[in-house]
């Protein structure tokens, strides 16, 4: 049985902020996140006839979204390689603290910068688990990996982040 699919307004209200932040942190810029959010919703409605309800709508939606983000990164890597420019130079911090930044602001900014430098798989697992609050079972479905791999990627991501954060002190 094909389950009822929520209308655009409902789907957008429930998922757009989470998708927007995921896309921003996966791909590095607000402009990327805006383009990707639009592409993701168009993709969802184009693929709607394929949705059979084996997965929860949310899981299906985030799987499409993460695949789209990873495709975007691949395409950017290719372009970057052609232009012989490094990825690090393109990635910008998600925001800058104001003139009177608190310790927490600085910690968050350092963490944002470090997240942007994680390998893609580890970044995806970290963002989905520690930032967006998905469980390993959901992450496994979204990324098409096993739960064990999800746990392993997350742990590697945290260890790598720690190294990077310690290097900034």
């Amino acid at each position, binding site marked *: *049985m*094909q389950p*009822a*699919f929520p209308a*655009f*307004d409902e789907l*957008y209200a429930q998922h*757009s*902020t989470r998708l*927007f*932040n995921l896309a*921003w942190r996966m791909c590095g810029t*607000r402009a990327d*996140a*805006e383009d990707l*959010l*639009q592409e993701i*919703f*168009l993709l969802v*409605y*184009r693929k*709607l*006839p394929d949705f059979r309800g084996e997965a929860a709508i949310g899981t299906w939606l985030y799987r499409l979204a993460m695949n789209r983000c990873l495709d975007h990164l691949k395409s950017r890597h290719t372009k970057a390689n052609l232009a012989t420019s490094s990825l690090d130079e393109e990635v910008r911090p*998600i*925001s800058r603290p104001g003139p009177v930044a608190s310790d*927490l602001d600085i*910690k*968050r900014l350092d*963490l*944002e910068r470090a997240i942007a430098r994680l390998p893609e798989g580890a970044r995806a697992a*970290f963002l989905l688990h*520690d*930032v967006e*609050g998905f469980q390993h079972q959901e992450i496994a479905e979204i990324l098409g990996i096993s739960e064990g791999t999800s*746990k*392993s990627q*997350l*742990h590697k991501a*945290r*260890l790598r*982040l*720690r190294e990077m*954060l*310690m290097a900034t002190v």
Partner: protein
Amino acid sequence: MTCEQINELLGDAVDGTLSASDSAIVRSHTDSCSACRQLLADLIDIRHTASLLERHEPSLDLRRAIKSEVQKIAPQPARRPGLGLWSGLAMAASLAVVLGSAVWLYFAAQPRTNPDAAAQLASATSELQLAEQHYDNAIAALEKLTADRNAKLDPQVAGAIAQSLATIDRAIGDSRAALKTQPDSIVAQTSLLEALRMKVALLQETVSLMNAS
């Protein structure tokens, strides 16, 4: 346990998903190993800071642009009468029978009253009878049509229709019984007309489905 072995447990330790026995092992190790204790504290801090990262909202302009694009391509989910329509009608039929039963129980429990409005009563009863007659005629015509073509329907769908019709018929019977007790009751009149309307709608849908098959 070595630091390396403990390291394998730290992910679950950060998330609080260790078993009681593994948790005791990690605690025992970190009590005596300052490096692993510091590592665990740092990982917990990273997780905590991650949960406090800034949330950004997409702009309203972006929402409008996306909605506009989606509306150009969004397909409507296919209508599946065997599932959606009949389950909806079954629900409606259930509501009808609940309403009909409630009307019956309510009026069975009420003491009889005799409002002194004979003319109004006669007029309302007459209007109800006309409406009832209208529905009965429509139902008879539709029933004849459906009886002639019933074989064209999928047995599962035909079964669902028959079940819904039986439910609606019970609601009609209950409402009529309530009206015999209280002919001037607006609630009972409404209940009867609603059940009749529902039966006409169901029969019309049935004919449409037969024509499409």
